[in-house]
Structure formats: structure tokens, C-alpha cells
């Protein structure tokens, strides 16, 4: 069994600071991490590997430094890592991203057939949850989104049964392999890398694939292949009326004054 896991390197949002004057993000020195949702996807793949000895390949499309994120996945137990990197890939929206990832997955599949593809539910930067569905459509695979549990996985009978978070309930779905599964957060408990894992990862080769390795059309990648464009960036509009400051000598005085004022201004709240 061969499992591909798509991961993205993202800035650690907990460490991001906004410039107080210009309102822009201060990106310099912000550490990057593996998109937290993708770790649940990787963990699910690792559990299947623990049970069945499956082989795991992790892939990411990103700049050279995304290699670091792939090494983290190797240290956790992935077998192979591929960095899909090329300057023409930059500026991609989700349509162009799924195109490149699908092309890479096809290339990988031709070498070692893929049974299952995992992605995270969404990323913490773009946050669109559109790449998983995009990959499934482009590969003609079944799509299973918001999966909270894999109940059955039969590589020989080629079927999979999952629990999927639907609106108002949980759907239990039976589908066929190969499938694209987007994993929900909290669906499993994450493991930590151990020492041997870290040493192995440090020595292991991360393959680099560019536009020629995966045979893509230039018109469909990067900025050129992206129908959505950012037209404008703006600050949120301040309200016409400033917040009314409630004064008082002590916390209790402020609280009393606030409650009085609140119900005087908005009698319907009572």
C-alpha cells in the first residue's frame, strides 16, 4: 500500500506580529511550521503504516525552505519526501495549486501506484479548504472531506469506509480506492518525533521536482494559471462613533456604571 500525504509549510500564526503603525504583517523572523491540520493527516497515514507496513510519501509545493517541513514529516516516520519547487509555481491560487499537486501525484503514481491521498482539512494561512477537492477532481479520485475516522480500509478489496462530518450529523460513507481524504483536526492524537527518527530525517534525501519533472503547462501554473487575483488590500473600516469609555475609580464602579449605561442606552436588553 502506498499513501501520499500533501502538506504545506505555513508561517506560525501564533508568532505573527502586526506592525502597529503600518498595519502590515511583520514576516521577518516568523518561524514556519507544518500546517497543523496536515499533521492530523500525516498521523492517520502513520497509523495505517503501523498496522499494514504501508509506504508513505509526503509532498509539498513551495519554496526551497519548505524542505524543512518535509524533514519534520520524515522524522515522524514518512518514508520519502518530494519538494515540488519552481519559480513559475509562485503566486498560485487554489486552482493552480491543485493542478501542480495533481501533476506531481500522477508522476509519483506512475512510479509507485498510490492507493490513498491525504490532505489536511485546510491551512492556517490561505484557509480555503479548496485544494483537497481540487486534487480529487483533477485525478478523478473519490473525494472524502472532513473525515473524522477511518473505519475500514481494505487495500486488496480496494474499499474504504469513513465517518464524515456533514451538516447536522455524521455521514458513514463507503468508497473505493484510490481516494482523496481530507482529515479533520483532533481526529487522532499526534505523535512526537524520536531521536532515531530525527537522525534518519537529517540524513535522508528530499527529492526536488520542477516543471519538467511533472510535465505541466506553463499557462496553468503560478500567477498565470490563477483566475483569482488580489485587487486591493485595505484596513477594516473604523466605526463612525468611537467606543464610549466607561470611567470609574474601582473595577466595581466601572462595572456598575457600565451596567447602568448599557440598560439606559439599550432598554430592550433587559
Amino acid at each position, binding site marked *: 500500500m502506498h499513501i501520499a500525504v500533501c502538506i504545506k509549510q505555513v508561517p506560525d500564526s501564533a508568532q505573527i506580529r502586526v506592525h502597529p503603525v503600518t*498595519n*502590515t504583517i511583520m514576516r521577518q523572523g516568523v518561524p514556519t511550521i507544518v500546517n497543523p491540520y496536515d499533521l492530523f493527516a500525516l498521523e492517520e497515514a502513520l497509523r495505517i503504516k503501523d498496522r499494514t507496513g504501508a509506504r508513505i510519501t509526503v509532498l509539498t509545493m513551495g519554496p526551497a525552505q519548505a524542505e524543512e517541513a518535509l524533514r519534520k514529516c520524515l522524522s515522524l516516520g514518512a518514508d520519502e519526501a518530494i519538494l515540488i519547487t519552481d519559480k513559475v509555481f509562485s503566486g498560485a491560487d487554489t486552482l493552480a495549486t491543485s493542478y501542480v499537486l495533481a501533476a506531481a501525484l500522477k508522476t509519483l503514481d506512475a512510479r509507485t501506484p498510490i492507493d490513498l491521498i491525504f490532505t489536511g482539512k485546510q491551512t492556517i494561512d490561505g484557509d480555503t479548504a479548496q485544494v483537497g477537492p481540487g486534487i480529487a*477532481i*483533477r485525478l478523478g479520485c473519490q473525494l472524502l472531506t472532513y473525515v473524522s475516522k477511518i473505519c475500514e480500509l481494505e487495500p486488496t478489496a480496494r474499499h474504504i469506509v469513513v465517518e464524515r462530518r456533514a451538516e*447536522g450529523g455524521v455521514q458513514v460513507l463507503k468508497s473505493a480506492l484510490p481516494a482523496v481524504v481530507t482529515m479533520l483536526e483532533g481526529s487522532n492524537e499526534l505523535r512526537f518525533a524520536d531521536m532515531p527518527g530525527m537522525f534518519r530525517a537529517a540524513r535522508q534525501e528530499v527529492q526536488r521536482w520542477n516543471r519538467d519533472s511533472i510535465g505541466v503547462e506553463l499557462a496553468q501554473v503560478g500567477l498565470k494559471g490563477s483566475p483569482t487575483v*488580489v485587487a486591493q488590500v485595505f484596513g*477594516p473600516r473604523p466605526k463612525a*462613533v468611537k467606543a464610549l*469609555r466607561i470611567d470609574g475609580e474601582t473595577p466595581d464602579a466601572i462595572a456598575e456604571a457600565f451596567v447602568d449605561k448599557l440598560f439606559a442606552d439599550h432598554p430592550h436588553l433587559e
Partner: protein
Amino acid sequence: PKRVLPERFKSYKGVWVFIEHEHGHVHPVSWELLGKGRELADKLGVELAGVLLGGMGEAVRELAAEVGAYGAELCYLARHPVLEDYRNQPYTTGLTELVDTYQPEILLLGATTQGRDLAGSVATTLLTGLTADCTGLDIDPSDRSLLSSRPTFGGSLMCTIVNLATRPQMATVRPRVMTMPARRPDRPLRVVEHGLQLDESAVVTKVLDFVPDVRADKPQLPFADFIVAGGRGLAKPENFTLVTRLASTIGAEVGASRPAVHAGWADVERQVGQSGKTVRPKLYIAAGISGAVQHRVGMEGADVIAGINLDPRAPIFDFANYALIGSAAELLPALERAFARRLAE
């Protein structure tokens, strides 16, 4: 380089809203989108349509009438036994065929587990652009394009995304972001029934079971009238319990910023903001929350906002009604006492 819309897309006309339903319940986000869709269609001078796919039961036909009541003049209806339960493959095939046949310029879906599942698949099949989780939608009068705004990453900035290259222009919007339009059952509606050639044997994924959620055990934050929310400024779990106590004193639901959820002080179901819930309460009290744009877009629809913050220049005060300056650890218990006294009167 300025992008121009290729000639073949110029025939695309009209605004569509995908009407999402599961086990007989329409997701209210569909009606909210019809409200917004009405505005967009009026600005463009085109028709607003609801698109409804479903099984053969009468219930689906009855839903079509509701599409009119919430403001559309047109409903595209596709019924087929294969569409009884939501599944990605037949719904993608069906919706894609409808778009190809009737060619809308705008297609809106709810950013729900169903809407996001379907939107991503349909946009990729159609090779068109899709903007996720928009908090604002408008029309550019100069070229009739859809302006989709959403917060940008990590900053306190918003961005406007446009699609000048393909059609339809697709966008998803989270529940409760747009206001619910008034229901007027007397509005005229044309229903266009579209026959789809679907075949169960060609649909790979089968639904084995559907286990409905037990409603009571989930916080109904989006529909709460009163919310007390806490953020990173509370600094420790003991302080977060002050939020919970004030909430129970005034009969409010508890909300949280993302860092408070990540710290484990509150359940993920209680996160308010861009990647959490959008709420529209009568009163929102935010304690130790700075008011970052990703939090703001989830709660600025509240009627009254009160911020509790040590820092009088915190961004929350740019859009709050009341500013309580001081330590939340002291002000929350003080508020509990003040409200308790008031409510006892």
C-alpha cells in the same frame, strides 16, 4: 498586466445561490445568500436564481417555493433518486451541468462542510476561480465583476479578490455573515425543472448511515442572544472561568478567540471569528481580546459590543460601543456582581 474576460464568457448572466439541504433541513446560510444575491443581481440588473438539487420526494419541490419567498425570481430544480443524500460526485456532476447549460456569471455557496466540499469540486471541474469565506460581496460598476473581500493572513487587513479571467465567479460565505432577508411567501417564482442523466451504478461512494447530531450537546453560539468571550489577555485557565461565570450569571453563551481555544481554555466549538463561528448576538462582551480582524469579522454583526482590555488603544475599541479599561481578572467578577444586583431588582 490587465486581464480581460475572454469572449466566450461574455454570455454568462445572472446570480445563482446553491440551496443547501440535508435530511429535509435547508441550511439557513442559503437564505442569507439569497438576501445578498438579491442586492448583487439588482446592481447588475439580472435575475437571481436558487439552484436546488435533491431526491424525488415532494419535500424538495416544496423547498423550491421557499426559494421565491427569500427573494429569487427563478429556481433551477434538478431531482433524481441518486441525489437523495448529499454526495460529492453526483452533486458535482449535476451542478456543473446546470452551470454549463444556463451559464450564470456568479455562483455563491455556503462555506459549510457541504458547500466547501461541493464548491471546490465544481470550481475545479469548471476551471474557474473560487474565493473562500468572503465577509463582503459587491459589484464593481466599471466592469460588472464580483468583488469578494476577506481578511488577509495574520494582519489586521482585508483584501478584495476578483476573477477577471473565467466565469462563473464563485465564492463561499460562512453562515451568519450575511443578514437573513425577510421571508415573503407571496413573491412570484419561475421554476425551471432540469432533467439530469445520472446513474446510481456509476456513483462510487455509497452512504451507509447518517447519524444526526444530538442538538442539545452542542453550543448554539451562532444563534445566541448574549455572548461573553475571552481571549489571550486572560493569561490563565483560572481567569477564563471568570468568563464562564459571568456568562452563566447573565444567561449568555461562552465564546473565545483562537488563542484561547488553542490554549485549551475553551472548546473549539466556541471559537468566534474567521475560522470559527460567526455570531450576531444582541450583546457581545469581549474580555482580553485585542480585536484582530479575523476575530472581528466573526462578531462585528453584534448589536452591542463591549470590550474589556488593559490597553485603551486595543483595536477592539475601533468598533466596540463600550470600552471598559482595566484588568479582566478584576472587571469580570465586578461585572458579575453588577449584573447580579441589577437582575435581582
